[in-house]
């Protein structure tokens, strides 16, 4: 080993394995360099280590690892010295190692963006270059862990930041490995995972809640819609069957009344015939009798009007089919009623769709409907008001709509469901038969249309008729 050539070969072999070996030296018991391989041959060859602390220690303990120091070389390094006892002689093999190798190892523990790792000695002096906390050979910018006795992990507040520190004793040299991590940083993936899990969970819950809410709402809406539809169709079915039953009844009543009415009429006519004969004319009460007979005939006619309207209502005749222009029928209907309306200072305004398609329907029956509704509107307004009649062609559902609005007092809510019932009237006794709207209803139904009413008290009433163009 004292042979420098041999040592050189050994050094070269070692250097091929690791460039961190800076030099090798063989020193005798007296501290003199027997052989040296390395860049500082001229300086170190003559150095005597006898009084060096490390030399004394290696001579006692057999192995010595120094702290990192700059030494003569001015680069951080440390030495490992091993004493070998051979026969009666002791040798010390000393190797200088660039502390970069440790730095590199420790650097691997720099985790994330804020994590740090360093090695300190028992004097709290850095042995490696930390990432943030100071320079090698100086105290680290970290709590003092020099007194650490073993492995520990602790969260500590340091300079206003909570940082997790882990320490571990490196046994051979009693160095202390300190690893620090910002919890926000190091735990981020964990926190992120936890957060993500929580987010997914929460998202799931929110999704379920929203989904449930939306589905429930949609279902409720659908149910309500179906309910309303059902109610509407029930109502229509009820109305329809009510009309049919009432129609039959009305027809029966009309028949039963018409026959006796015919007899009464004929008897009254016969009495009138008799009164026209000369001898009776001389009677004291001739005029009284004649008046009475006239009254009987007048009221037979009045009763007849009712029964004939009843029959008209009950009529199940097939409507006559004609190609008609609804705007023209409306105009004709208005013509009938215009004088009455003008007399009462009611303005009838029309707003017709010029492109209203012709429809095949029963003109006379349709006119009856319009007359009934407009007459009602005039009666409702009584004096001073406005009736607006609109016609429109609704392309979406292929319908013709006729809207008749008045500025009358409106229909009371409780009366609204009954207005299409036969004999329902709000007019004075003797003025309305209560058949107008029920006739309108049954006619429109027969023509394949629909009639609807919207009314608001004080504001007015609107009847809307939908007819299919054919």
């Amino acid at each position, binding site marked *: 080993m004292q042979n420098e050539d041999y040592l050189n070969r050994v050094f070269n072999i070692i250097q091929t394995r690791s460039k961190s070996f800076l030099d090798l030296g063989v020193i005798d018991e007296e501290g003199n360099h027997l052989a040296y391989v390395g860049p500082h041959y001229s300086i170190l060859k003559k150095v005597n280590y006898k009084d060096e602390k490390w030399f004394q220690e290696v001579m006692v303990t057999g192995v010595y690892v120094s702290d990192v120091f700059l030494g003569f070389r001015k680069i951080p390094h440390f030495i490992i010295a091993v004493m070998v006892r051979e026969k009666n002689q002791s040798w010390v093999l000393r190797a200088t190692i660039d502390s970069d190798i440790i730095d590199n190892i420790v650097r691997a523990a720099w985790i994330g963006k804020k994590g740090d790792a360093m090695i300190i000695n028992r004097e709290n002096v850095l042995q490696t270059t930390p990432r943030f906390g100071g320079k090698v050979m100086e105290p680290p910018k970290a709590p003092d862990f020099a007194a650490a006795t073993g492995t520990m992990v602790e969260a500590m507040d340091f300079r206003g930041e909570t940082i997790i520190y882990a320490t571990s004793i490196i046994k051979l040299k009693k160095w202390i490995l300190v690893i620090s991590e910002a919890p926000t940083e190091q735990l981020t993936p964990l926190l992120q995972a936890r957060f993500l899990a929580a987010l997914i969970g929460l998202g799931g819950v929110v999704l379920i809640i929203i989904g449930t809410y939306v589905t429930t709402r949609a279902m409720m809406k659908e149910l309500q819609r179906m309910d309303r539809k059902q109610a509407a169709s029930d109502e229509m079915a009820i109305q329809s069957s009510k009309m049919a039953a009432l129609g039959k009844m009305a027809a029966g009543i009309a028949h039963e009344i018409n026959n006796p009415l015919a007899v009464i009429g004929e*008897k009254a006519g*016969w009495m009138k015939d008799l009164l026209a004969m000369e001898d009776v004319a001389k009677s004291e009460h001739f005029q009284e009798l004649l008046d009475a007979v006239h009254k009987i005939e007048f009221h037979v006619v009045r009763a007849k009007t009712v029964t004939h309207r009843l029959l008209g209502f009950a009529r199940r005749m097939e409507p006559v089919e004609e190609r008609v222009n609804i705007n023209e029928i409306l105009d004709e209907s208005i013509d009938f009623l215009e004088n009455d309306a003008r007399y009462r200072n009611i303005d009838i305004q029309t707003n017709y769709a010029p492109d209203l398609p012709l429809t095949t329907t029963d003109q006379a029956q349709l006119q009856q409907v319009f007359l009934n509704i407009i007459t009602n509107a005039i009666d409702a307004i009584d004096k001073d008001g406005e009736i607006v009649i609109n016609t429109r062609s609704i392309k979406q559902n292929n319908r013709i709509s006729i809207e008749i609005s008045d500025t009358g007092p409106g229909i009371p809510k409780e009366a609204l469901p009954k207005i299409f019932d036969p004999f329902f009237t709000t007019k004075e006794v003797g003025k309305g038969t209560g058949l107008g709207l029920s006739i309108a209803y049954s006619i429109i139904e027969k023509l394949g249309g629909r009639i609807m009413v919207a009314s608001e008290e004080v504001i007015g009433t609107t009847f809307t008729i939908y007819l299919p163009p054919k």
Partner: protein
Amino acid sequence: MEKFKMLVVDDEPDFLETIIKRLKARKIEVAGVDSGYKALEFLDKHDVDVIVLDVKMPGMDGIETLRAIKKKKARVEVIMLTGHASVESGIQGIQLGAFDYVMKPVALDELLEKVRQAYDRKMIQADKA
């Protein structure tokens, strides 16, 4: 005195009796029977121009009677008299050859006007034949 001969068919005796009296008071040659059978019997024995026929009668009803009358004497004009919701039967009657239909109760003068029109048609068709 009107030129035409009339027959009134109605099951309601009060009505029948009174209308006959009134028509006779107007110097119209008229007879009354209270059923479809009797009307057909009457037709066999008498000459009639216009028949006023009630639609709703027990036994043989107005429509049936009308068919039988038209079969027997196609030239006889018939005016249907309906008292109940049988506008259909009135129309059916017209399709079967009745001249017109009238709803009860009807003023006598109105009815007579229809009868005269019916008689005129009968005359025109007789001329054509």
